[in-house]
């Protein structure tokens, strides 16, 4: 049976965790692929991170209901707290002992997008993030059914404005286009309208910040959706979508793009993954296990061919190497300069990722940051001591996804080597 070498272990870890911590990566060396994947997909218990210090919902709500001035004050307060929420997320990403789960949380956040910019209430985004974290490796059907009732989502895609006689199609459209079937796949504008009608009356109780079904605003007219007649509520719409074979294929394609390659997915492969996904009743763990055990994932063709996301680069580097940690506030700001403003994706489609992470602006920020992290400081001796006690070849296998393209230093010194590897353009890859 094939046993992973250090470079294989790095490939796996750098794609599905956050960075490549030495001990965790080294521990997978010599394991079979299946063993290594199983270790990563079955971590210790996922801990719920302590909540950020947000003003209680009821207080904010009371403040904003008072008068125009109170409303403005509440909004300002929330904007300040949006930053706290971003810092909270940075801290999770940096310190989580279940990085695979954090990455999957980000994956679902990028699928079921919501933004602080539109939603405004940090509580609701926090709540959504906790929900995604809890279910990141669970059941996709549960995710889909619950996200339709998620208060942040109901605000973000105007579901809360979707009422009888005044259907708002925003959520229905994205449910089909972005969450399940994908653009241009077997649905019509009539299907979107039908779905919007079925979801009428699903809203948010603003006193509590929770889901609220208002029967008086629900349009009970039976509609036909994707050929299924007599549909009268949103849950039934989701059932139809979960029965549709395209949904699993669409998710498999997104998984390809996130974990395998920026290139167009191989339809034979994604169809196979989709079958496993559907047959497991939409178990995300089953899908990920299939993907990470596939020949495709391990193929030389796709090694080191993806651009690191800002989170990979910033958080990954700080988790991997013993550099001085920057304050969460600064890290959140750097992530936004690099194009990954936490909880504020650029569009409802989320972050495009791949090559679009790199433009003339972000490349300058990336290189400045890595230079800053690795420059010579007084802490050098400390950092040097914290580096793994191993050979230069192992350090290269551990940090470089492909052979570095610039010459490596000829003078000895582990820190010098690490610095050269990090500043090599190939370090931008994973």
């Amino acid at each position, binding site marked *: 049976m094939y046993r992973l070498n250090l470079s294989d272990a790095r490939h796996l870890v750098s794609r599905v965790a956050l960075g490549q911590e030495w001990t965790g990566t080294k521990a997978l060396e010599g394991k079979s692929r299946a063993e290594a994947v199983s270790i990563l997909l079955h971590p210790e218990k996922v801990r719920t991170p302590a909540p950020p210090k947000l003003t209680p919902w009821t207080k904010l709500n009371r403040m904003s209901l008072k008068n125009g001035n109170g409303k403005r004050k509440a909004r300002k307060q929330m904007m300040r707290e949006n930053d706290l929420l971003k810092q909270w997320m940075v801290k999770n990403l940096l310190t989580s002992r279940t990085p695979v789960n954090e990455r999957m949380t980000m994956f679902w956040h990028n699928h079921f997008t919501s933004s602080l910019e539109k939603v405004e209430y940090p509580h609701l985004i926090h709540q959504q993030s906790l929900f995604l974290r809890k279910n990141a490796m669970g059941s996709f059907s549960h995710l889909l059914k619950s996200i339709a009732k998620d208060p942040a989502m109901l605000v973000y895609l105007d579901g809360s404005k979707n009422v009888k006689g005044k259907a708002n199609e925003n959520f229905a459209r994205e449910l089909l286009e972005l969450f399940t079937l994908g653009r241009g796949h077997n649905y019509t504008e009539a299907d979107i309208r039908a779905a919007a009608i079925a979801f009428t009356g699903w809203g948010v109780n603003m006193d509590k910040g929770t889901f609220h079904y208002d029967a008086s605003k629900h349009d009970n007219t039976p509609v036909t959706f994707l050929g299924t007649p007599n549909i009268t509520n949103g849950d039934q719409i989701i059932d139809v979508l979960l029965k549709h074979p395209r949904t699993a294929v669409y998710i498999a394609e997104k998984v390809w793009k996130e974990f395998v390659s920026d290139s167009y997915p191989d339809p034979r492969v994604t169809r196979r993954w989709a079958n496993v996904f559907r047959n497991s009743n939409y178990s995300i763990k089953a899908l990920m296990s299939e993907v990470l055990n596939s020949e495709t994932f391990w193929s030389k063709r796709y090694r080191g061919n993806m651009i690191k996301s800002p989170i990979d680069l910033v958080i990954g580097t700080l988790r991997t190497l013993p550099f001085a940690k920057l304050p969460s506030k600064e890290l959140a700001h750097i992530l936004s300069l690099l194009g990954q403003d936490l909880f504020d994706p650029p*569009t409802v489609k989320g972050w495009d990722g791949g*090559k679009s992470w790199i*433009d*003339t*602006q972000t*490349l300058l920020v990336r290189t*400045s940051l890595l230079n800053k992290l690795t420059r010579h400081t007084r802490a050098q001796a400390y950092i040097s001591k914290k580096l793994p006690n191993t050979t230069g070849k192992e350090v290269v296998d551990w940090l470089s996804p492909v052979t570095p*393209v610039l010459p490596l230093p000829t003078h000895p010194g582990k820190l010098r080597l690490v610095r050269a590897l990090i500043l090599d353009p*190939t370090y931008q890859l994973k």
Partner: protein
Amino acid sequence: MNRRDFLKYASLTPLAGMIPSVLASNPNLSINSQNKKILLLIELKGGNDGLSTLIPKGNKEYEKLRPTLAIRPPENMHLDKGLYLNPYLKDIKYLWNKGDMAWIQGVGYPNSDRSHFHSIDVWNTASTNSKDASGWLTKSGLPNSPNILNGIIVGDDRMGPFAGKNGRAVAMENPRTFLRQTKYLNRDQYRAPNDSLAHLLSTQNQIISAADLLTSRLNQSPRRYARFPNSAFGRNLEQVTRLITSGVHLPVFKVTLEGFDTHAGQKDIHNNLMHHLGGGLAAFHKAMAAARLWDNVLVMTYSEFGRRVAENSSQGTDHGSASVQLVLGGRVNKGIYGKAPSLTHLDDGDLIPNIDFRQVYATISQRWWRRSNPWSKRYHPITFV
């Protein structure tokens, strides 16, 4: 500038032998015919009040809705059809007389978004579809070779109309900061093992080429042709002018004039902005004319939206919809384009646009750059150039 000189920076092939094969496919895309057509974009940030820029002097509704803000320019500011230039733009009035100035009025888009953030996205992407994040210039038929630098943005570190992986432009708050940042960038060429790294290498080379241009051309310090306003806008415009007059003929340059979000005490603020705009553009014209490049440049202003027709209680104006765009250049067809938007028939207090801004983009693609019009299905060019 001869072709070889141009390719030296524009094609970014400093070490031709080491360019990875993925990049080498078409490194010398011919853009000779195009390198003489320069577009200078001027973003008026914050939402420029069209009614205080191109003024319907004496219009009864205008006077009624703008009791403290209505401007009554002197007769020598009259352009055409009862419309007057803001008096603080007097420095460029001669360009109208000369036939090198055009205005597009009532320009905007349907169901205008009143958020600065969203509306500038719409202008930047030429799309009201919120899923589209790539800049309009990447769609406008500019050279699409990875080895070519298409533009320089000075005064804003966001890519704006160049956003997206095919932007091929650099953006900077100012050249000095930019050059400091580029200090850390790898300058060595290498063979990229895959297309992700090839993209990174080409981006790196775009930055290096811009940095080299700024270092070499700006330091050559060509003759000062004209005096620019003493403001960030004036200095940035001067830098761009010096790049152009020293032979850097990229298809697009962009500078920003900030401060148009005039919710209170608008009159003095706006007049001052007009003064800087007019002074800067007059200096730019003088420099271009002296370098015999005036026929090769097209200047265009734009803003995320215009402002509410009725003034508010703080002698300011709130976010609105349609506004005006100013176009200058040796090949511009003088005139005021577009029907004047009605001041009585309003959409929720805002002007209803008569011209879609994508018609203006279409004009630039088709009539200025002589490329096909990517918006041809719905938006037709106008004849201002």
